[in-house]
């Protein structure tokens, strides 16, 4: 039982056309910060790091043993067909 007495009687939902969303404990539900969209700046930085990391491998080109494998296989008669 609440002891606070004021002229404003707080009755859930009273006087409001669209009641504020509440959780099971009656607290107002506010959007969670972590679900907010990332800023443009942060997205750009992540994108840059990601591409720099990826490009470092791409710039290594085709390893010799892989190139040899592809050339050998492509010269082979693919008897299955």
């Amino acid at each position: 039982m609440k002891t606070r007495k004021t002229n404003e009687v707080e009755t859930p939902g009273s006087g409001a056309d669209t009641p504020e969303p509440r959780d099971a404990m009656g607290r107002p539900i506010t959007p969670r910060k972590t679900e907010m969209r990332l800023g443009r700046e942060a997205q750009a930085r992540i994108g840059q790091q990601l591409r720099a990391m990826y490009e470092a491998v791409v710039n290594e080109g085709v390893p010799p043993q892989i190139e040899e494998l592809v050339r050998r296989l492509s010269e082979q008669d693919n008897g299955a067909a």
Partner: protein
Amino acid sequence: MKLDPAIRDQVLGTVPSLRAFAISLCGNVDRADDLVQETLLRALAHIDSFEPGTNMPAWLFTILRNLFRSEYRKRRREVEDADGRYAETLKSHPEQTGRVEFAEFRNALAKLPSDQREALILVGASGFSYEDAAAICGCAVGTIKSRVNRARTRLADLLAIDGVDDFGPDRATRAVLAGGGRN
């Protein structure tokens, strides 16, 4: 029948990006190169099912991803602890992860669930459209979009990228970004 040299060159042209994708999946260069070789063996044995003029990179990436997934499915214990093992690999063999200077970023990447990690790499680094990435992963376009968004948010958290100044202690990464990244 011998392979059309134009097709062979398309395959070879895709290898560098295919390797980068494989390394980001495995977290280990040697295993990644094995995976790439297995992918190429499989692809060239079934080259008839590739339609000339369609997207060669998307075709090869799909084969590689499926091989990677089925390899993990065979070894159940690895499935359950795939992400933990990935992180361990990075810790114990930093020299095997391609580029030591991206250690901080790779470590953060390793903490993402694997489906978010692959979606982010395909869209953000390999340069696939959301549609191609969805086809490669066998899921809906909306699923890829939400995985990419969640991956970015989590990475920003892990790397503490929220302000203009705080960009983590990784000096090499700073240098790379200061030197380029305008393209």
